[in-house]
């Protein structure tokens, strides 16, 4: 699919943007021990929440990459006029976006988890939960990013629109890691998160496509 290949190629040509997102993730996570203190038990306890919130914020920061450049240079108009559903093109963009944001964050997370002395079992669940949860951040975020295209204060506005909708993913994702830490089974959390991912990916591209059309009007 042309859109997917194009977006991937564009990110590869300009890897700095991707790296900025990843460094943001690392820096935010590293701030917590500095602010709270280096007690290993305390850090282990807050690790699931901290890692998840940091991944969430990093995803939020990456959202403008989805549409803003394409909106500015007219590519978005061409996508809207293509003889295939716009929601499909949005979905392709989401896949490309996840491969260049969500996936690297997911892969980086176990490394960062070392800072918090997270046990291996919890780290495994963290990776799985982030792999399931980051697509939700991208998909819901796409709706917010599309609605705020071309508006003043777009970035902050996107955050205000999108953050409340991120809460269920955060609860199930961080909850899964926390359950593992507490010696419980994480499968309940993970299956709810997976259901949420499927549901979001089914509807969000459609809503984001509608939002893109509204912003082009």
């Amino acid at each position: 699919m042309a859109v997917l290949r194009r977006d991937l190629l564009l990110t590869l040509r300009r890897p700095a943007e991707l790296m900025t997102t990843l460094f943001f993730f690392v820096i935010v996570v590293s701030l917590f021990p500095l602010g709270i203190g280096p007690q290993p038990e305390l850090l282990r306890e807050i690790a699931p929440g901290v890692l998840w919130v940091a991944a969430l914020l990093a995803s939020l920061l990456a959202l403008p990459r989805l549409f803003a450049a394409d909106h500015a240079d007219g590519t978005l108009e061409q996508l809207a006029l293509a003889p295939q559903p716009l929601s499909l093109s949005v979905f392709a963009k989401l896949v490309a976006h996840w491969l260049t944001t969500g996936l690297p964050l997911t892969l980086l997370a176990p490394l960062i988890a070392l800072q918090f002395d997270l046990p291996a079992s919890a780290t495994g669940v963290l990776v799985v939960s982030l792999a399931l949860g980051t697509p939700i951040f991208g998909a819901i975020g796409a709706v917010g990013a599309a609605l705020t295209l071309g508006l003043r204060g777009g970035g902050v506005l996107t955050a205000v629109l999108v953050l409340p909708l991120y809460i269920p993913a955060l609860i199930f994702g961080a909850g899964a890691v926390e359950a593992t830490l507490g010696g419980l089974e994480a499968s309940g959390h993970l299956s709810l998160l997976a259901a949420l991912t499927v549901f979001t990916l089914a509807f969000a591209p459609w809503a984001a496509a509608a939002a893109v059309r509204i912003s082009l009007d």
Partner: protein
Amino acid sequence: MLEVSALAAARGDRVLFAGLDFSVPAGGLLQVTGRNGTGKTTLLRVLARLVRPDAGEVRWNNTSVADLGDEFFAELCYLGHAPAIKDDLTARENLAFSAGIAGVAADAAAIDAALAEVGLTGREMLPGRVLSQGQRRRVALAQLYLGQRRLWLLDEPLAALDSEASAAFVERLGAHLHAGGVAVVSTHHEIVPPPPATRHALRLGAGQAPAKPGSDTDFPGGRAAGSQRNG
């Protein structure tokens, strides 16, 4: 081919045009003129279904474009102000992806041929960021020469083009019309396609603008399009 009835569009509080009726037959060119802010771009965007009209209807082949959906988009090539060129992609890649998005099958040879047609031979591998405004515009225009799209909606296609490139474009436009295509072009320069293409003129916002002597017939308020045969 392309028919418009009772079309109206407003931007904010301002009505740009209302009660617009015209039709462009196969092989016809509609040239939209008018001063800045009279709604040329909005009209083209309404025709391309990017903007919902406030009233009225656009028909293509006697069917409302609202009912046509992707069939209409497959026949349409719209070029707006922004040329949709990525700085980080080469001219060749830019054109290939534009074709891919538009669902036009184009192999490497066809891409290079289209770039040659707009005079970019030898610059296929240059990234978008080093291309001049005129060269970016040419890459965008090269899309027109890929595939067989029958409706061209072009917003200021001659902007930033030198006279040579403009002449080449007008020639290509003539060939498109000759093959039964339709084009709606907004421009400040008069475009005279080679006969036997019919040229129609639509002047928007003529009510406020002073009429230029020797220009095409004015229709106050943009009520209807005149039709005149060239040559």
